[in-house]
């Protein structure tokens, strides 16, 4: 390009970039709603007018037939002492055992001092979260049965079986005792799933050292449970940085101190590869960017990169569809740069990952709350508060959602979630 224009071009570019950075954009929900409405309108307009009504009728009839044939079976129901238990409800036993009876014949008995949440019910099973204590499950087997018990960082996938599961949240230890059938145990710190059957018993713990393994297992699963250090690291970072249910604080000086140690120990030779993945990510080649980061050592990057780079790495992983790596990068920001704006941003991204990725609204709510606690007036506060409200609505926390809705309307009466907030606010 001619030198004669380079100064002018640069001046214009910088001026435009400033304007773009400062732009107030329509809320994302509004934009998406507009896009979908217009796409729908254009699809309809593309049809031939004389045949439009007939075509629509045929399509509608076909849809009804398809729906009738393929409609999902009704989800099973669950009752405690004859009273129905809704998805999202907490069940807590005190001094005596409690039994949950499912309509497919499955029984889950809560031993004393056990807390469990019924997360979801489907036609082929249920998802339960064991917060603490011991449950005894007798799951009725069918070909497509899908039962799942989540306990801290572990998941017990059940087909048809009888087993005990105990979880100690303080030590993050899961014990599984099989009586009949088989289960598959997975966890963020387990390299491979562990298969338990017959009368096997195993304990699982995410260790604080460099490896993760089941403790004192008697199961066949033992040989496959050694985890790579980076998985253990990620799990530890998660445990350390996850916002506690009751206290949502930015990471303190302790984590900042650790960050600097890690940073100092990190090899300085990572720069060229780092440039590669960043360049690829900036060009929109997210999978390639992630592969480049993996080639260099994802964990090393998490331990050495700057906060903005880690946010970019997390975004690249998220857009490449790898939620595991995305969460590791965001959690590294939380761990190493606690209290910074980047850490706050990472909390929002973690919430978004939980919300958009798998609809894990309970986790998402906690991250969005962490963001709001750390940056009550932050640029994403409106979106975060709106999403907290959505999370509460979707997890059946009606009164909490109402309160958040009132708070939202007071702060952002014209916000993207205002309509939802009004629908949740009692007249």
């Amino acid at each position: 390009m001619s030198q004669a224009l380079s100064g002018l071009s640069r001046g214009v570019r910088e001026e435009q970039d400033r304007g773009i950075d400062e732009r107030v954009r329509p809320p994302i929900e509004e934009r998406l709603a507009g896009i979908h409405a217009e796409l729908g309108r254009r699809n309809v307009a593309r049809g031939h007018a004389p045949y439009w009504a007939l075509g629509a009728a045929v399509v509608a009839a076909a849809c009804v037939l398809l729906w009738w044939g393929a409609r999902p079976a009704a989800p099973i129901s669950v009752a405690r002492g004859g009273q129905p238990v809704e998805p999202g409800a907490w069940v807590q036993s005190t001094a005596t055992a409690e039994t949950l009876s499912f309509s497919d014949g499955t029984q889950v008995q809560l031993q004393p001092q056990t807390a469990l949440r019924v997360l979801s019910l489907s036609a082929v099973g249920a998802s339960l979260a064991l917060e603490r204590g011991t449950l005894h499950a007798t799951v009725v087997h069918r070909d497509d049965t899908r039962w799942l018990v989540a306990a801290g960082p572990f998941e017990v996938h059940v087909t048809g079986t009888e087993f005990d599961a105990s979880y100690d949240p303080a030590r993050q230890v899961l014990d599984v005792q099989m009586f009949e059938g088989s289960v598959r145990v997975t966890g963020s710190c387990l390299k491979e799933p562990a298969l338990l059957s017959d009368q096997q018993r195993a304990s699982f713990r995410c260790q604080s050292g460099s490896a993760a393994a089941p403790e004192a297992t008697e199961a066949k699963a033992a040989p496959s449970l050694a985890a790579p250090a980076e998985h253990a690291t990620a799990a530890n970072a998660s445990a350390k940085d996850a916002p506690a249910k009751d206290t949502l604080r930015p990471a303190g000086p302790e984590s900042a101190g650790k960050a600097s140690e890690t940073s100092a120990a990190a090899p300085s030779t990572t720069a060229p590869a780092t440039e590669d993945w960043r360049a690829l990510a900036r060009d929109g080649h997210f999978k390639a960017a992630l592969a480049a980061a993996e080639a260099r050592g994802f964990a090393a990057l998490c331990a050495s990169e700057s906060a903005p780079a880690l946010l970019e790495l997390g975004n690249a992983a998220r857009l490449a569809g790898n939620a595991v790596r995305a969460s590791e990068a965001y959690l590294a920001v939380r761990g190493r740069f606690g209290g910074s704006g980047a850490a706050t941003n990472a909390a929002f991204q973690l919430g978004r990952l939980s919300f958009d990725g798998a609809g894990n609204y309970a986790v998402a709510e906690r991250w969005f709350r962490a963001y709001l606690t750390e940056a009550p007036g932050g640029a994403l506060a409106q979106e975060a508060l709106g999403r907290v409200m959505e999370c509460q609505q979707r997890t059946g926390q009606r009164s909490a959602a109402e309160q958040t809705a009132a708070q939202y309307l007071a702060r952002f009466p014209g916000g993207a979630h205002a309509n939802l907030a009004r629908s949740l606010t009692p007249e």
Partner: protein
Amino acid sequence: MARPVIQLRPETLRLLAPADDAESLVDALKVRKAWAERALVEDHTAHVERLITRVLGPSSDVDDLVQEVFIRALGRVDQLRDEGVKSWLGAFAVNVAREALRKKRRWRWLWSVAAEDAPEVRSADATPDVRAAMGALYRLLDRMDPDDRVVFTLRAIEGMELLEVAGLTDLSLSTVKRRFKRAQEFVIQHARRDVLLADWVDAS
């Protein structure tokens, strides 16, 4: 089939992948996953805005044009390949901007020159002002063939390589080179005679 992923604790975020296998944004877009559409719009709005702004200059229609880009892109998501979401969207952005230019040009004869479009008279010793220069440059570009303008703005202002410009505009590299050369000569020639631009060109 997506597995029933549930967790209560953020340390289990590894389980948050949308599907058993790592699912790319592209794959998810093709099956109309809401998270993917949201991610596409959220993460690429600034990029689309930037390309449109480069081509059109200051415009009050940017939001509408950005919206049009995403409508077209999501309507033709089946054409999206695994690599290059950014350049795929960029091609839509360039097309939308070029159409806006042609439309503006088609109806220009109906309107008189708006007051803000008239070049400002500036004293010779005034400091070059980038905003005024930007306005003057785009007024100059208004007189240029839209295709030349697209090539010029992407290369000179956005700083793209000619090959990239060729990719986004669906023109051959030689055509891009020819158009850029012509546009550059036009701008330099006229800028030297424009009181708002002359200092910038000479300074460079």
